Protein backbone atom coordinates (compact mmCIF):
# COMPACT_ATOMS: atom_id res chain seq x y z
CA UNK A 1 0.00 0.00 0.00
CA UNK A 2 1.29 3.43 -0.94
CA UNK A 3 1.83 6.28 1.51
CA UNK A 4 -1.17 8.24 0.31
CA UNK A 5 -3.58 5.33 0.48
CA UNK A 6 -3.75 4.92 4.22
CA UNK A 7 -0.64 2.94 4.99
CA UNK A 8 -0.93 0.07 7.39
CA UNK A 9 1.69 1.33 9.86
CA UNK A 10 1.64 4.39 12.10
CA UNK A 11 4.50 6.05 10.27
CA UNK A 12 5.45 6.39 6.64
CA UNK A 13 8.10 8.24 4.70
CA UNK A 14 7.62 10.89 2.03
CA UNK A 15 8.91 9.50 -1.25
CA UNK A 16 10.35 12.90 -2.16
CA UNK A 17 11.74 14.68 0.92
CA UNK A 18 12.12 11.45 2.93
CA UNK A 19 10.55 13.04 5.99
CA UNK A 20 8.94 10.58 8.37
CA UNK A 21 5.23 11.32 8.52
CA UNK A 22 2.25 10.05 10.42
CA UNK A 23 0.42 7.71 8.05
CA UNK A 24 -2.94 9.03 9.15
CA UNK A 25 -1.84 12.60 8.61
CA UNK A 26 -0.67 11.87 5.05
CA UNK A 27 -3.89 9.99 4.34
CA UNK A 28 -5.98 12.92 5.53
CA UNK A 29 -3.88 15.22 3.33
CA UNK A 30 -4.94 13.14 0.28
CA UNK A 31 -1.42 11.75 -0.06
CA UNK A 32 0.18 15.19 -0.38
CA UNK A 33 3.25 15.59 1.83
CA UNK A 34 2.62 18.35 4.41
CA UNK A 35 6.37 19.07 4.41
CA UNK A 36 7.27 19.35 0.71
CA UNK A 37 3.95 19.15 -1.14
CA UNK A 38 4.88 15.99 -3.03
CA UNK A 39 1.81 14.33 -4.53
CA UNK A 40 2.09 10.60 -3.87
CA UNK A 41 0.36 8.33 -6.34
CA UNK A 42 -3.15 7.25 -5.42
CA UNK A 43 -4.94 4.00 -6.14
CA UNK A 44 -7.96 4.31 -8.42
CA UNK A 45 -10.28 3.63 -5.47
CA UNK A 46 -8.77 6.38 -3.33
CA UNK A 47 -8.72 8.80 -6.27
CA UNK A 48 -12.43 8.25 -6.79
CA UNK A 49 -13.11 8.64 -3.07
CA UNK A 50 -11.29 11.97 -2.83
CA UNK A 51 -12.68 13.41 -6.06
CA UNK A 52 -16.35 12.56 -6.48
CA UNK A 53 -19.43 12.96 -4.26
CA UNK A 54 -19.32 10.44 -1.39
CA UNK A 55 -21.07 7.23 -2.34
CA UNK A 56 -21.90 8.45 -5.84
CA UNK A 57 -19.54 6.17 -7.75
CA UNK A 58 -21.00 3.12 -9.40
CA UNK A 59 -18.39 0.90 -11.04
CA UNK A 60 -19.25 -0.53 -14.46
CA UNK A 61 -17.51 -3.00 -16.75
CA UNK A 62 -15.60 -4.42 -13.77
CA UNK A 63 -15.82 -7.86 -15.34
CA UNK A 64 -13.61 -7.02 -18.32
CA UNK A 65 -10.32 -8.87 -18.08
CA UNK A 66 -7.13 -8.98 -20.08
CA UNK A 67 -6.27 -12.04 -22.05
CA UNK A 68 -2.95 -12.75 -23.71
CA UNK A 69 -3.83 -12.12 -27.35
CA UNK A 70 -0.39 -12.67 -28.88
CA UNK A 71 0.99 -15.12 -26.28
CA UNK A 72 3.65 -12.68 -25.20
CA UNK A 73 6.38 -14.08 -22.90
CA UNK A 74 5.42 -13.81 -19.20
CA UNK A 75 2.36 -11.65 -19.88
CA UNK A 76 -0.08 -14.05 -18.21
CA UNK A 77 2.10 -14.21 -15.10
CA UNK A 78 2.39 -10.43 -15.00
CA UNK A 79 -1.38 -10.10 -15.24
CA UNK A 80 -1.92 -12.50 -12.36
CA UNK A 81 0.60 -10.66 -10.19
CA UNK A 82 -1.00 -7.31 -10.96
CA UNK A 83 -4.45 -8.68 -10.11
CA UNK A 84 -3.14 -9.94 -6.79
CA UNK A 85 -1.41 -6.63 -6.08
CA UNK A 86 -4.33 -4.33 -6.90
CA UNK A 87 -7.39 -6.53 -6.46
CA UNK A 88 -8.55 -5.27 -9.88
CA UNK A 89 -8.77 -7.06 -13.17
CA UNK A 90 -7.05 -4.29 -15.09
CA UNK A 91 -5.58 -0.83 -14.66
CA UNK A 92 -8.66 1.23 -15.41
CA UNK A 93 -11.61 1.59 -13.02
CA UNK A 94 -14.62 3.12 -14.75
CA UNK A 95 -18.23 3.96 -14.17
CA UNK A 96 -20.53 6.81 -13.31
CA UNK A 97 -20.29 9.27 -10.43
CA UNK A 98 -21.40 12.74 -9.44
CA UNK A 99 -19.67 16.05 -8.84
CA UNK A 100 -21.78 18.29 -6.64
CA UNK A 101 -24.74 16.22 -7.84
CA UNK A 102 -23.91 16.65 -11.52
CA UNK A 103 -23.69 13.19 -13.09
CA UNK A 104 -20.40 12.40 -14.84
CA UNK A 105 -18.92 9.44 -16.67
CA UNK A 106 -15.46 8.63 -15.32
CA UNK A 107 -12.41 6.45 -15.89
CA UNK A 108 -9.45 6.38 -13.53
CA UNK A 109 -6.17 4.57 -14.16
CA UNK A 110 -4.33 2.72 -11.44
CA UNK A 111 -0.59 2.93 -12.06
CA UNK A 112 -0.02 -0.11 -9.86
CA UNK A 113 -1.58 -2.40 -12.45
CA UNK A 114 1.32 -2.97 -14.86
CA UNK A 115 2.25 0.69 -14.90
CA UNK A 116 -1.27 1.68 -15.89
CA UNK A 117 -0.45 0.51 -19.40
CA UNK A 118 -3.08 0.81 -22.10
CA UNK A 119 -4.10 -2.57 -23.43
CA UNK A 120 -7.34 -3.90 -24.87
CA UNK A 121 -9.22 -3.84 -21.54
CA UNK A 122 -8.11 -0.38 -20.43
CA UNK A 123 -8.97 1.07 -23.85
CA UNK A 124 -12.33 -0.69 -24.00
CA UNK A 125 -13.24 0.70 -20.57
CA UNK A 126 -12.16 4.19 -21.59
CA UNK A 127 -14.13 3.97 -24.83
CA UNK A 128 -17.23 2.80 -22.95
CA UNK A 129 -16.74 5.72 -20.57
CA UNK A 130 -16.96 8.09 -23.54
CA UNK A 131 -19.94 6.17 -24.92
CA UNK A 132 -21.75 6.46 -21.58
CA UNK A 133 -21.12 10.19 -21.66
CA UNK A 134 -22.75 10.21 -25.09
CA UNK A 135 -25.73 8.04 -24.10
CA UNK A 136 -26.43 9.77 -20.79
CA UNK A 137 -25.45 13.23 -22.02
CA UNK A 138 -23.03 13.79 -19.17
CA UNK A 139 -19.50 15.20 -19.09
CA UNK A 140 -16.62 12.73 -19.24
CA UNK A 141 -13.62 12.84 -16.90
CA UNK A 142 -10.56 10.66 -17.42
CA UNK A 143 -7.67 10.50 -14.92
CA UNK A 144 -4.49 9.12 -16.50
CA UNK A 145 -1.56 7.43 -14.77
CA UNK A 146 0.23 5.37 -17.33
CA UNK A 147 3.59 4.53 -18.79
CA UNK A 148 2.01 4.12 -22.22
CA UNK A 149 0.75 1.35 -24.45
CA UNK A 150 0.89 -2.22 -23.14
CA UNK A 151 3.54 -3.69 -25.40
CA UNK A 152 2.67 -7.22 -24.26
CA UNK A 153 -0.36 -6.93 -26.53
CA UNK A 154 1.77 -6.08 -29.56
CA UNK A 155 0.03 -4.26 -32.40
CA UNK A 156 -3.31 -4.61 -30.60
CA UNK A 157 -2.02 -2.12 -28.04
CA UNK A 158 -0.97 0.40 -30.69
CA UNK A 159 -4.45 0.24 -32.20
CA UNK A 160 -5.95 1.08 -28.80
CA UNK A 161 -4.65 4.63 -29.04
CA UNK A 162 -6.59 5.08 -32.27
CA UNK A 163 -9.64 3.50 -30.69
CA UNK A 164 -9.78 5.85 -27.69
CA UNK A 165 -9.06 8.81 -29.96
CA UNK A 166 -12.05 7.86 -32.10
CA UNK A 167 -14.29 7.87 -29.04
CA UNK A 168 -13.13 11.39 -28.13
CA UNK A 169 -13.93 12.46 -31.66
CA UNK A 170 -17.53 11.24 -31.30
CA UNK A 171 -18.01 13.07 -28.00
CA UNK A 172 -16.68 16.22 -29.60
CA UNK A 173 -19.21 15.84 -32.44
CA UNK A 174 -22.05 15.63 -29.92
CA UNK A 175 -20.82 18.45 -27.65
CA UNK A 176 -20.10 16.17 -24.70
CA UNK A 177 -17.53 17.98 -22.52
CA UNK A 178 -14.40 15.98 -21.81
CA UNK A 179 -11.85 16.80 -19.10
CA UNK A 180 -8.52 14.99 -19.05
CA UNK A 181 -6.45 14.95 -15.86
CA UNK A 182 -2.77 13.99 -15.97
CA UNK A 183 -1.40 12.41 -12.83
CA UNK A 184 2.06 10.96 -12.35
CA UNK A 185 3.00 9.61 -14.88
CA UNK A 186 1.15 10.30 -18.13
CA UNK A 187 3.36 9.05 -20.91
CA UNK A 188 3.80 7.85 -24.46
CA UNK A 189 0.81 6.08 -26.03
CA UNK A 190 -1.69 7.42 -23.52
CA UNK A 191 -0.40 10.96 -23.94
CA UNK A 192 -0.47 10.55 -27.74
CA UNK A 193 -4.16 9.70 -27.72
CA UNK A 194 -7.30 10.54 -25.71
CA UNK A 195 -5.35 12.23 -22.88
CA UNK A 196 -4.05 15.08 -25.08
CA UNK A 197 -7.16 16.05 -27.02
CA UNK A 198 -9.61 16.92 -24.27
CA UNK A 199 -11.63 20.13 -24.08
CA UNK A 200 -9.81 20.91 -20.85
CA UNK A 201 -6.55 19.34 -19.69
CA UNK A 202 -5.47 19.59 -16.04
CA UNK A 203 -2.44 18.10 -14.37
CA UNK A 204 -1.33 17.42 -10.85
CA UNK A 205 1.91 19.27 -9.98
CA UNK A 206 5.24 17.67 -10.90
CA UNK A 207 3.62 14.76 -12.72
CA UNK A 208 5.90 13.12 -15.29
CA UNK A 209 4.40 13.95 -18.69
CA UNK A 210 6.06 13.06 -21.96
CA UNK A 211 6.05 11.21 -25.25
CA UNK A 212 9.34 9.35 -25.28
CA UNK A 213 11.03 7.68 -22.34
CA UNK A 214 13.22 10.34 -20.73
CA UNK A 215 16.29 8.26 -21.55
CA UNK A 216 15.41 8.08 -25.23
CA UNK A 217 14.75 11.81 -25.43
CA UNK A 218 17.98 12.73 -23.76
CA UNK A 219 19.96 10.34 -25.95
CA UNK A 220 18.40 11.87 -29.02
CA UNK A 221 19.33 15.34 -27.86
CA UNK A 222 22.30 17.42 -28.85
CA UNK A 223 21.33 20.51 -26.90
CA UNK A 224 20.82 20.80 -23.18
CA UNK A 225 17.71 19.31 -21.65
CA UNK A 226 15.72 21.73 -19.47
CA UNK A 227 15.56 20.86 -15.75
CA UNK A 228 11.81 20.51 -15.75
CA UNK A 229 11.75 18.48 -19.00
CA UNK A 230 8.79 16.09 -19.23
CA UNK A 231 6.98 17.45 -16.19
CA UNK A 232 3.54 18.95 -15.85
CA UNK A 233 5.23 22.33 -15.45
CA UNK A 234 7.12 21.89 -18.73
CA UNK A 235 4.04 21.01 -20.77
CA UNK A 236 2.12 23.81 -19.06
CA UNK A 237 4.80 26.33 -20.03
CA UNK A 238 4.58 25.09 -23.61
CA UNK A 239 0.84 25.54 -23.78
CA UNK A 240 -0.04 21.85 -23.99
CA UNK A 241 -2.29 21.86 -20.92
CA UNK A 242 -4.61 24.38 -19.30
CA UNK A 243 -3.88 24.32 -15.58
CA UNK A 244 -1.77 22.68 -12.93
CA UNK A 245 -4.12 21.85 -10.09
CA UNK A 246 -2.98 20.72 -6.63
CA UNK A 247 -4.87 17.67 -5.44
CA UNK A 248 -6.95 19.39 -2.79
CA UNK A 249 -8.23 21.84 -5.41
CA UNK A 250 -9.02 19.18 -7.98
CA UNK A 251 -12.58 18.47 -6.85
CA UNK A 252 -13.71 22.13 -6.71
CA UNK A 253 -11.99 22.81 -10.05
CA UNK A 254 -13.75 19.88 -11.71
CA UNK A 255 -17.09 20.94 -10.25
CA UNK A 256 -16.75 24.42 -11.73
CA UNK A 257 -15.74 23.04 -15.09
CA UNK A 258 -18.57 20.51 -15.42
CA UNK A 259 -21.06 23.16 -14.33
CA UNK A 260 -19.75 25.58 -16.94
CA UNK A 261 -19.07 23.24 -19.84
CA UNK A 262 -22.04 20.94 -19.26
CA UNK A 263 -24.70 23.61 -18.76
CA UNK A 264 -26.20 22.92 -22.18
CA UNK A 265 -26.73 19.26 -21.27
CA UNK A 266 -28.92 20.00 -18.26
CA UNK A 267 -31.30 22.34 -20.07
Amino acid at each position, binding site marked *: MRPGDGASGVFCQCAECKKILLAGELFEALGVCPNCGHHHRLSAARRIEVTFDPGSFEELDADLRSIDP*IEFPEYSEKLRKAEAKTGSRDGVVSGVAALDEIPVSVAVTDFDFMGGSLGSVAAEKIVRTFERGLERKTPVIVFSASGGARMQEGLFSLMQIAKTTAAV*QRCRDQAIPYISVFTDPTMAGVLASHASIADVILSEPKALVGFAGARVSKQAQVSKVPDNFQTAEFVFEHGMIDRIVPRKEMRPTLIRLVRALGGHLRG
Partner: protein
Amino acid sequence: MAKTWKEWEKPLLELDEALGKLRELARVATPDRRAELERRIAESEQRRNRYIDVMYSRLGPWEKVLVARAEKRPYSLDYINALFTEFIELDGDRRYGADHAIVGGVAFFDERPVMVVGHQKGRNIQERQYRNFGMAKPEGYRKAMRLFDMANRFRMPVVTFVDTPAADPGVESESRGISEAIAAAMQRMFELKVPVVSVVHGEGGSGGAIGIAVANRVLMLEHAIYSVIPPEGCAAILWRDPDRGPQAAAALRLTAQSALEYGLIDDIILEPHGGAHRDPPGAIRAVGEALARHLAELGAFDGEALQADRYAKFRAMGRFGEGAA
Protein backbone atom coordinates in the same frame (compact mmCIF):
# COMPACT_ATOMS: atom_id res chain seq x y z
CA MET B 1 20.80 -15.40 -36.43
CA ALA B 2 21.98 -12.42 -38.42
CA LYS B 3 22.17 -9.28 -36.30
CA THR B 4 22.51 -6.78 -39.12
CA TRP B 5 21.41 -6.30 -42.68
CA LYS B 6 25.01 -6.76 -43.92
CA GLU B 7 25.36 -10.07 -42.14
CA TRP B 8 21.98 -11.22 -43.40
CA GLU B 9 22.57 -10.37 -47.04
CA LYS B 10 26.25 -11.40 -47.08
CA PRO B 11 25.81 -14.83 -48.73
CA LEU B 12 23.63 -13.26 -51.39
CA LEU B 13 26.04 -10.42 -52.00
CA GLU B 14 28.83 -12.96 -52.40
CA LEU B 15 26.79 -14.89 -54.94
CA ASP B 16 26.00 -11.65 -56.76
CA GLU B 17 29.66 -10.69 -56.75
CA ALA B 18 30.74 -14.05 -58.17
CA LEU B 19 28.05 -13.72 -60.79
CA GLY B 20 29.29 -10.26 -61.71
CA LYS B 21 32.84 -11.57 -62.16
CA LEU B 22 31.64 -14.39 -64.40
CA ARG B 23 29.66 -11.94 -66.51
CA GLU B 24 32.71 -9.73 -66.84
CA LEU B 25 34.84 -12.71 -67.88
CA ALA B 26 32.22 -13.76 -70.41
CA ARG B 27 32.17 -10.29 -71.89
CA VAL B 28 35.86 -10.35 -72.75
CA ALA B 29 36.19 -14.09 -73.39
CA THR B 30 36.97 -15.72 -76.72
CA PRO B 31 33.92 -17.30 -78.40
CA ASP B 32 35.01 -20.88 -77.51
CA ARG B 33 35.40 -19.97 -73.78
CA ARG B 34 32.18 -17.98 -73.74
CA ALA B 35 29.85 -20.99 -74.08
CA GLU B 36 31.40 -22.57 -71.00
CA LEU B 37 31.18 -19.32 -69.04
CA GLU B 38 27.56 -18.79 -69.97
CA ARG B 39 26.74 -22.26 -68.72
CA ARG B 40 28.39 -21.37 -65.40
CA ILE B 41 26.53 -18.06 -65.29
CA ALA B 42 23.21 -19.84 -65.73
CA GLU B 43 24.14 -22.27 -62.97
CA SER B 44 25.13 -19.43 -60.63
CA GLU B 45 21.92 -17.58 -61.35
CA GLN B 46 19.94 -20.65 -60.51
CA ARG B 47 21.86 -21.15 -57.31
CA ARG B 48 21.32 -17.53 -56.37
CA ASN B 49 17.59 -17.68 -57.13
CA ARG B 50 17.19 -20.90 -55.15
CA TYR B 51 19.00 -19.22 -52.28
CA ILE B 52 16.63 -16.25 -52.47
CA ASP B 53 13.67 -18.63 -52.55
CA VAL B 54 14.85 -20.33 -49.40
CA MET B 55 15.78 -17.11 -47.59
CA TYR B 56 12.62 -15.24 -48.43
CA SER B 57 10.11 -18.03 -48.05
CA ARG B 58 10.93 -18.34 -44.38
CA LEU B 59 11.85 -14.88 -43.19
CA GLY B 60 11.61 -14.77 -39.42
CA PRO B 61 10.30 -11.68 -37.62
CA TRP B 62 13.79 -10.30 -37.07
CA GLU B 63 14.80 -10.85 -40.70
CA LYS B 64 11.64 -8.94 -41.63
CA VAL B 65 12.86 -6.09 -39.43
CA LEU B 66 16.15 -6.07 -41.35
CA VAL B 67 14.42 -6.25 -44.73
CA ALA B 68 11.80 -3.62 -43.80
CA ARG B 69 14.62 -1.22 -42.92
CA ALA B 70 16.71 -1.96 -46.03
CA GLU B 71 17.67 1.29 -47.66
CA LYS B 72 17.36 -0.07 -51.17
CA ARG B 73 13.62 -0.55 -50.70
CA PRO B 74 11.46 2.03 -52.41
CA TYR B 75 10.68 4.94 -50.07
CA SER B 76 7.44 6.88 -50.02
CA LEU B 77 8.51 9.40 -52.64
CA ASP B 78 9.55 6.56 -54.95
CA TYR B 79 6.00 5.23 -54.79
CA ILE B 80 4.46 8.68 -55.06
CA ASN B 81 6.53 9.75 -58.05
CA ALA B 82 5.98 6.50 -59.91
CA LEU B 83 2.29 5.87 -59.18
CA PHE B 84 0.84 9.38 -59.22
CA THR B 85 0.97 12.09 -61.82
CA GLU B 86 1.36 15.83 -61.35
CA PHE B 87 2.31 15.47 -57.68
CA ILE B 88 2.73 18.91 -56.20
CA GLU B 89 4.21 18.98 -52.74
CA LEU B 90 2.53 21.25 -50.21
CA ASP B 91 4.74 21.81 -47.24
CA GLY B 92 3.41 24.28 -44.70
CA ASP B 93 2.07 23.43 -41.26
CA ARG B 94 1.08 27.13 -40.81
CA ARG B 95 2.26 26.87 -37.19
CA TYR B 96 5.99 26.54 -36.82
CA GLY B 97 8.01 25.10 -39.66
CA ALA B 98 8.56 22.74 -42.55
CA ASP B 99 9.03 19.08 -41.67
CA HIS B 100 10.83 16.94 -44.21
CA ALA B 101 10.17 13.60 -42.53
CA ILE B 102 6.57 13.75 -43.72
CA VAL B 103 5.85 14.79 -47.30
CA GLY B 104 2.45 15.47 -48.78
CA GLY B 105 0.51 17.14 -51.49
CA VAL B 106 -2.02 16.79 -54.24
CA ALA B 107 -1.63 14.47 -57.20
CA PHE B 108 -3.62 12.37 -59.63
CA PHE B 109 -4.14 8.63 -59.46
CA ASP B 110 -5.74 7.14 -62.56
CA GLU B 111 -6.58 10.73 -63.52
CA ARG B 112 -8.51 11.33 -60.28
CA PRO B 113 -7.31 13.97 -57.82
CA VAL B 114 -6.05 12.52 -54.53
CA MET B 115 -4.26 13.78 -51.42
CA VAL B 116 -1.01 11.94 -50.71
CA VAL B 117 0.89 11.96 -47.41
CA GLY B 118 3.87 9.83 -46.42
CA HIS B 119 6.91 9.50 -44.19
CA GLN B 120 10.15 9.97 -46.06
CA LYS B 121 13.55 8.53 -45.13
CA GLY B 122 16.89 9.43 -46.68
CA ARG B 123 19.51 7.22 -48.30
CA ASN B 124 22.79 9.03 -47.60
CA ILE B 125 24.03 11.05 -44.65
CA GLN B 126 22.82 14.41 -45.95
CA GLU B 127 19.44 13.06 -46.98
CA ARG B 128 19.02 11.24 -43.70
CA GLN B 129 19.67 14.37 -41.74
CA TYR B 130 17.37 16.38 -43.99
CA ARG B 131 14.63 13.78 -43.47
CA ASN B 132 15.49 13.36 -39.77
CA PHE B 133 15.69 9.59 -40.38
CA GLY B 134 11.99 9.57 -41.23
CA MET B 135 11.09 10.72 -37.71
CA ALA B 136 8.52 13.48 -37.95
CA LYS B 137 8.19 16.33 -35.49
CA PRO B 138 4.85 17.89 -34.51
CA GLU B 139 5.04 20.05 -37.64
CA GLY B 140 4.89 16.97 -39.83
CA TYR B 141 1.68 15.74 -38.23
CA ARG B 142 0.16 19.23 -38.28
CA LYS B 143 0.96 19.53 -41.96
CA ALA B 144 -0.68 16.12 -42.51
CA MET B 145 -3.77 17.36 -40.64
CA ARG B 146 -4.02 20.37 -42.90
CA LEU B 147 -3.84 18.18 -45.95
CA PHE B 148 -6.43 15.76 -44.50
CA ASP B 149 -8.78 18.69 -43.87
CA MET B 150 -8.31 19.95 -47.38
CA ALA B 151 -8.94 16.51 -48.85
CA ASN B 152 -12.17 16.33 -46.87
CA ARG B 153 -13.30 19.75 -48.05
CA PHE B 154 -12.56 19.04 -51.69
CA ARG B 155 -13.74 15.43 -51.61
CA MET B 156 -10.41 13.87 -52.50
CA PRO B 157 -9.48 10.34 -51.45
CA VAL B 158 -6.47 10.20 -49.11
CA VAL B 159 -3.54 7.83 -49.60
CA THR B 160 -0.83 7.63 -46.95
CA PHE B 161 2.53 5.85 -47.12
CA VAL B 162 3.85 4.72 -43.76
CA ASP B 163 7.57 4.21 -43.18
CA THR B 164 9.01 5.57 -39.95
CA PRO B 165 11.07 4.14 -37.10
CA ALA B 166 9.12 6.39 -34.69
CA ALA B 167 8.02 9.96 -34.21
CA ASP B 168 10.88 12.29 -33.28
CA PRO B 169 11.62 11.85 -29.55
CA GLY B 170 13.69 14.97 -28.94
CA VAL B 171 13.22 17.94 -26.60
CA GLU B 172 12.06 20.18 -29.45
CA SER B 173 9.27 17.78 -30.35
CA GLU B 174 8.17 17.49 -26.74
CA SER B 175 8.19 21.28 -26.44
CA ARG B 176 5.88 21.68 -29.39
CA GLY B 177 3.53 18.86 -28.38
CA ILE B 178 4.40 15.77 -30.41
CA SER B 179 1.83 13.72 -28.46
CA GLU B 180 -0.97 16.18 -29.11
CA ALA B 181 0.04 16.40 -32.77
CA ILE B 182 -0.19 12.63 -33.25
CA ALA B 183 -3.47 12.35 -31.35
CA ALA B 184 -4.98 15.28 -33.25
CA ALA B 185 -3.88 13.82 -36.60
CA MET B 186 -5.61 10.53 -35.75
CA GLN B 187 -8.68 12.42 -34.63
CA ARG B 188 -8.72 14.33 -37.91
CA MET B 189 -8.57 11.06 -39.84
CA PHE B 190 -11.67 9.84 -38.00
CA GLU B 191 -13.51 12.93 -39.24
CA LEU B 192 -12.83 12.31 -42.92
CA LYS B 193 -15.78 11.63 -45.21
CA VAL B 194 -13.59 10.45 -48.07
CA PRO B 195 -11.87 7.11 -48.78
CA VAL B 196 -8.60 6.67 -46.88
CA VAL B 197 -6.04 3.99 -47.77
CA SER B 198 -2.74 3.55 -45.91
CA VAL B 199 0.18 1.51 -47.17
CA VAL B 200 2.72 0.40 -44.55
CA HIS B 201 5.62 -0.34 -46.90
CA GLY B 202 8.65 -0.33 -44.58
CA GLU B 203 8.68 0.35 -40.87
CA GLY B 204 5.37 1.00 -39.15
CA GLY B 205 6.90 2.50 -36.01
CA SER B 206 4.38 2.95 -33.18
CA GLY B 207 2.64 6.31 -32.62
CA GLY B 208 4.62 7.89 -35.42
CA ALA B 209 3.05 5.43 -37.84
CA ILE B 210 -0.56 5.27 -36.62
CA GLY B 211 -0.63 9.08 -36.62
CA ILE B 212 -1.17 8.92 -40.39
CA ALA B 213 -2.63 5.41 -40.67
CA VAL B 214 -6.25 5.65 -39.51
CA ALA B 215 -7.59 4.33 -42.79
CA ASN B 216 -10.56 2.45 -44.21
CA ARG B 217 -8.02 0.06 -45.69
CA VAL B 218 -4.61 -0.53 -44.15
CA LEU B 219 -2.35 -2.48 -46.49
CA MET B 220 1.07 -3.86 -45.66
CA LEU B 221 3.84 -4.99 -47.93
CA GLU B 222 4.74 -8.62 -47.46
CA HIS B 223 7.96 -7.91 -45.57
CA ALA B 224 6.98 -4.65 -43.87
CA ILE B 225 6.67 -4.47 -40.08
CA TYR B 226 4.17 -2.72 -37.81
CA SER B 227 4.89 -2.51 -34.11
CA VAL B 228 3.93 -0.72 -30.91
CA ILE B 229 7.62 -0.38 -30.00
CA PRO B 230 10.91 -0.99 -31.83
CA PRO B 231 12.13 -4.50 -31.00
CA GLU B 232 15.39 -3.12 -29.59
CA GLY B 233 13.44 -0.81 -27.26
CA CYS B 234 11.19 -3.65 -26.18
CA ALA B 235 14.23 -5.82 -25.40
CA ALA B 236 15.82 -2.98 -23.43
CA ILE B 237 12.72 -2.67 -21.26
CA LEU B 238 11.97 -6.36 -20.83
CA TRP B 239 15.44 -7.80 -20.52
CA ARG B 240 17.58 -4.68 -20.14
CA ASP B 241 19.39 -5.82 -23.26
CA PRO B 242 18.79 -4.06 -26.58
CA ASP B 243 20.81 -6.79 -28.30
CA ARG B 244 17.93 -9.19 -27.78
CA GLY B 245 15.97 -7.40 -30.52
CA PRO B 246 15.50 -10.65 -32.46
CA GLN B 247 13.66 -12.25 -29.53
CA ALA B 248 11.59 -9.14 -28.98
CA ALA B 249 10.71 -9.04 -32.69
CA ALA B 250 9.36 -12.57 -32.40
CA ALA B 251 7.44 -11.81 -29.21
CA LEU B 252 5.86 -8.65 -30.63
CA ARG B 253 4.55 -10.45 -33.73
CA LEU B 254 5.27 -7.39 -35.80
CA THR B 255 4.95 -9.01 -39.24
CA ALA B 256 2.31 -8.25 -41.86
CA GLN B 257 1.20 -11.87 -41.67
CA SER B 258 0.45 -11.62 -37.94
CA ALA B 259 -1.27 -8.24 -38.34
CA LEU B 260 -3.57 -9.71 -41.00
CA GLU B 261 -4.27 -12.81 -38.93
CA TYR B 262 -5.31 -10.56 -36.00
CA GLY B 263 -7.57 -8.52 -38.24
CA LEU B 264 -5.57 -5.33 -37.60
CA ILE B 265 -4.80 -4.73 -41.28
CA ASP B 266 -6.86 -5.42 -44.37
CA ASP B 267 -4.55 -6.79 -47.02
CA ILE B 268 -0.99 -7.88 -47.73
CA ILE B 269 0.73 -6.75 -50.93
CA LEU B 270 3.11 -9.46 -52.16
CA GLU B 271 6.65 -8.33 -52.88
CA PRO B 272 8.73 -9.29 -55.91
CA HIS B 273 11.02 -12.32 -55.70
CA GLY B 274 13.65 -11.57 -53.06
CA GLY B 275 11.95 -8.50 -51.64
CA ALA B 276 11.01 -4.98 -52.74
CA HIS B 277 14.63 -3.83 -52.53
CA ARG B 278 15.67 -6.34 -55.20
CA ASP B 279 13.05 -5.14 -57.69
CA PRO B 280 11.71 -1.67 -56.80
CA PRO B 281 9.70 -1.27 -60.04
CA GLY B 282 8.01 -4.61 -59.33
CA ALA B 283 7.13 -3.52 -55.79
CA ILE B 284 5.80 -0.19 -57.02
CA ARG B 285 3.63 -1.96 -59.63
CA ALA B 286 2.20 -4.27 -56.96
CA VAL B 287 1.37 -1.33 -54.70
CA GLY B 288 -0.25 0.51 -57.62
CA GLU B 289 -2.49 -2.45 -58.41
CA ALA B 290 -3.54 -2.81 -54.76
CA LEU B 291 -4.27 0.92 -54.45
CA ALA B 292 -6.38 0.88 -57.61
CA ARG B 293 -8.41 -2.05 -56.35
CA HIS B 294 -9.03 -0.70 -52.83
CA LEU B 295 -9.80 2.83 -53.98
CA ALA B 296 -12.27 1.45 -56.52
CA GLU B 297 -14.00 -0.62 -53.82
CA LEU B 298 -14.21 2.33 -51.44
CA GLY B 299 -15.52 4.54 -54.22
CA ALA B 300 -18.85 2.75 -53.91
CA PHE B 301 -19.54 4.27 -50.46
CA ASP B 302 -20.74 7.73 -49.55
CA GLY B 303 -18.92 9.96 -47.07
CA GLU B 304 -21.02 9.08 -44.03
CA ALA B 305 -20.58 5.37 -44.69
CA LEU B 306 -16.81 5.77 -45.06
CA GLN B 307 -16.54 7.63 -41.77
CA ALA B 308 -18.75 5.08 -40.00
CA ASP B 309 -16.76 2.21 -41.49
CA ARG B 310 -13.48 3.66 -40.23
CA TYR B 311 -14.90 4.17 -36.77
CA ALA B 312 -16.43 0.69 -36.56
CA LYS B 313 -13.23 -0.91 -37.74
CA PHE B 314 -11.02 0.62 -35.04
CA ARG B 315 -13.76 0.38 -32.40
CA ALA B 316 -13.71 -3.39 -32.81
CA MET B 317 -9.94 -3.76 -32.38
CA GLY B 318 -8.80 -5.32 -29.12
CA ARG B 319 -9.13 -8.70 -27.50
CA PHE B 320 -10.31 -9.24 -23.94
CA GLY B 321 -12.53 -11.38 -21.78
CA GLU B 322 -15.84 -10.30 -20.31
CA GLY B 323 -18.01 -11.91 -17.64
CA ALA B 324 -16.99 -14.49 -15.06
CA ALA B 325 -13.48 -15.85 -15.62
